[in-house]
């Protein structure tokens, strides 16, 4: 053991709901725990108890542990303490808090994925309330939003958030690091009712195969039963060229996302608002996805203050065939949902078509027609999708046909 002192977490004037842990291994002298907490009056004893439990769990008998706390909740405190300890202690043991009952829900392949909220993996304060904004998915990010020297501690935050933070039904996603480093992340996240993994800078089916293989290994070891979906992110010229290969690399791939910051840099173009420079890449990806029968997801819109710009971008994105976008701010979620939603005209048309389909079925007719026009099956399917969507977004009631028939 060469290094004897380790740190984890954040401190400073602007830090809230987090903590900073200093851990020092000692050869003798017993355990010393020093806590400076903003919520000492109310939680001082429970923080101390937690610290003792964790030290005992890792069988540490001689150490100095200091916690500077700005109102961190238990999963965050535990993650910081464990991260600091594990910088000095080589062990496979994990200090796991219970997986909340509320977090034991599943996901499915065709899940709506209009909005996925990116949450920096080392910023627990933002994660705690993420679910209240009702995104379709939350992405706990271990990649670009985490500084290289914080990757280690972020894994514990993300793991504990998956277990201990309620995301209120949002699909539970993690963006791992780039291949091959990202393979290391998997064991921290796969066992904790994870729904989907984003694989960044994906450039071929081999990346997906390698990730899948590692996931399967962990699933077998830890007896994990839930399906874990994959969403590769295409962020390079090579990725775009290989879009279909990636989209069809494994049955777990449910969507491709495009990352335009890196892509435009890769092709040597400037990223502009009208996005001509990425038109090919975007349509290429949409096409690959549709060919592989999976979802196409657009990049993020980075100007969080520009609501109208976002609205226009989403409309454009929808018109190209995309079925979702990334969000970097909770206030983008509602705008994205509203803009991906079918408009009134689309809903009215869909109602007529779907109703005609049911009527034809009820009458035992083989052909669906509306007025004098024949309706093809794909048109019915698209109309049904719009109806489902309208119901999901609360624009239409489940029993809309009862009222529709009376009209």
């Amino acid at each position, binding site marked *: 053991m060469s290094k004897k002192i380790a740190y984890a977490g954040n401190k400073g004037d602007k830090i809230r709901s987090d903590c900073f842990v200093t851990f020092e291994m000692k050869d003798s002298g017993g355990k010393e725990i020093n806590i400076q907490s903003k*919520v000492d*009056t*109310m*939680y001082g004893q429970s923080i101390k108890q937690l610290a003792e439990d964790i030290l005992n769990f890792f069988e540490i008998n001689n150490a100095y542990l200091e916690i500077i706390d700005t109102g*961190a*909740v238990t999963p965050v405190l535990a993650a910081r303490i464990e991260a600091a300890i594990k910088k000095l202690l080589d062990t496979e043991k994990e200090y796991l808090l219970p997986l909340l009952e509320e977090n034991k829900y599943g996901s499915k392949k065709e899940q709506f994925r209009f909005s996925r909220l990116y949450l920096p993996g080392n910023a627990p304060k933002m994660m705690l309330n993420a679910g209240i*904004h009702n995104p379709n998915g939350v992405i706990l990010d271990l990649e670009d939003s985490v500084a290289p020297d914080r990757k280690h501690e972020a894994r514990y935050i993300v793991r504990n958030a998956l277990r201990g933070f*309620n995301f209120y039904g949002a699909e539970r996603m993690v963006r791992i690091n780039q291949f091959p480093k990202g393979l290391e992340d998997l064991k921290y996240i796969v066992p904790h009712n994870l729904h989907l993994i984003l694989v960044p800078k994906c450039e071929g089916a081999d990346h997906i195969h390698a990730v899948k293989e590692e996931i399967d290994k962990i699933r077998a070891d830890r007896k994990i039963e839930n399906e874990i979906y994959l969403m590769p992110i295409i962020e390079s010229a090579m990725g775009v060229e290989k879009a279909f290969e990636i989209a069809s690399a494994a049955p777990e791939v449910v969507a491709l996302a495009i990352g335009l910051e890196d892509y435009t840099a890769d092709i040597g173009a400037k990223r502009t608002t009208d996005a001509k420079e990425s038109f090919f890449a975007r349509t290429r990806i949409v096409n690959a996805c549709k060919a592989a029968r999976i979802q196409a997801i657009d990049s993020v819109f980075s100007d969080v203050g520009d609501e109208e710009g976002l609205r226009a971008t989403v409309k454009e994105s929808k018109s190209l065939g995309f079925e979702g976008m990334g969000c970097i701010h909770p*206030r983008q979620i509602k705008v994205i949902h509203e803009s991906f939603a079918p408009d009134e005209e689309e809903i009215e048309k869909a109602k007529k078509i779907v109703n005609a389909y049911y009527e034809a079925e009820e009458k035992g007719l083989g052909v669906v027609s509306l007025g004098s026009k024949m309706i093809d099956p794909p048109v019915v399917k698209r109309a049904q999708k719009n109806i489902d969507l309208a119901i999901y977004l*609360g624009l239409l009631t489940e029993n809309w046909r009862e009222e529709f028939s009376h009209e």
Partner: protein
Amino acid sequence: MSKYVKNALGRTIPTEINGEEVIPFKGIGQHRPKGRKYSTEVPTCLDYPDDGNKVVDSLEEALKKCGLQNGMTLSTHHHLRNGDLVSNKLFDVVHDMGVKDIRWFPSASFPCHSHLIQYLEDGTIHHIEGSMNGPLGKFVTEGKMQGTGILRSHGGRVQAIQDGEVQIDIAVLAAPSADIFGDANGQYGPSACGVLGYAKADYLYADKVIVVTDNLVDFPNFPMEIEGNYVDYVVQIDNIGIPEKIVSGTLRITKSPDRLHMAEMTSNFLLESEILHDGCYMQSGAGGTSLAIGYFSHQLLKQKGWKARLGFGGSTKYMVQMLKDESMEHILDAQAFDLDAVQSVAENPNHHQYSVFNAYNFHSKGNLTSMMDIMILGATEIDVNFNANVATHSDGYLLHGIGGWQNCLHAKNVIIPVPLFRDRIPVIKDEVTTICGPGKMIDVIVTERGIAINPERKDLIEKMKNSSLPIHTIQELKEEAEAICGQAQKPKIGEEVVAAIKWVDGTVLDVVRKLEE
């Protein structure tokens, strides 16, 4: 020796505070005042100069002429907010004159008044009746003030003055603009603060009135928010305030996505419950979340083509904007919070000065707040019976004044948007540290994780039963807060009473006790 009794809320309070008998809270609307209003001695103009010039050389001279003595009550107003230089200067002078045991009776205190801690320590000031914010509150909670602090609402302060509960010996009133006769207003001058409504009870009922200004103008000075006929002396000093701390140039809607979410939920609740309607009376504060609710409600009014009949302020640029685009017909203004509001009071004929003297006094012939449809308020804590706290924090420290909060509880619909927890400190809990408002008067709690309607508001529960908004019981919200934050220990609170919380009718609702080390 004081004894203890339980008041109608079951809170244990002393029978005597600062040597005076206490009337325990009897229940909402249960206490009726008796007797006649307090009055000052009849003055005569024989004692005042015929040329109307009441200017004296210094504050010390004015205080001497007013007969300042040990144990007197000195009052100040808080329109200069955290930029007030007058209260601090006043006690520098009082201290230098060697006078002791003053009861300081401000309409509110701010962190800038921590300067006065030295005078609480050396006995210049015996105790404070008003608000004890930040450092002053901490000082009081640690049991260091000689007397017991008394917290009143803005309306309660007017009531106490009018009823003679507190007799002001000398009111020392900062005025951004004053003439030699003492006519004064808050609209003009380097320290402009908009209105001077909180000073009205002081100048009407104090035995002596000193106007302190840094902007002496020619007679006559209009508008006359303070009328010279009530003023004894006028003192000119270099600066009465620090302009950038008097009004905020940049009051902004919260940027926090969580608070915005809560604000949007609140506005949607107001619309769905039909509390927001054409012609409604509304009031909200100047906090970031309140401003956002004002903003979202403004958008809803526009969408519906409705107008609010009036807004009661604390006005801000957001309310002024509603007036400008005709989403609101009148602003009645007790205090201007930002520069846009200060300017609007001076320019817009539908932006009216309206003192708390008229709006908030419970012992008067009507109560503006009971006419309000929408009342958005804050709280530090709320319990499962909807009782709310605004004065102390969960760690036991007294940190805020009551302001107009208690008075506003009389509105038709009291809505409190609060986060479920703040940096691990649950806001909704089994029991609040201090009761500042009885739960019966609080109708709706909106948190980022759900909305709780007071079970007594069956009408609202009925209206919202098919709503898509997340309606929960308050118990459910409390349990969720506890699940996230963990079970908290209680602070070590001692026996000694350090401050009392008065209700709007002058009875004692609760007390704050000394915090043990």
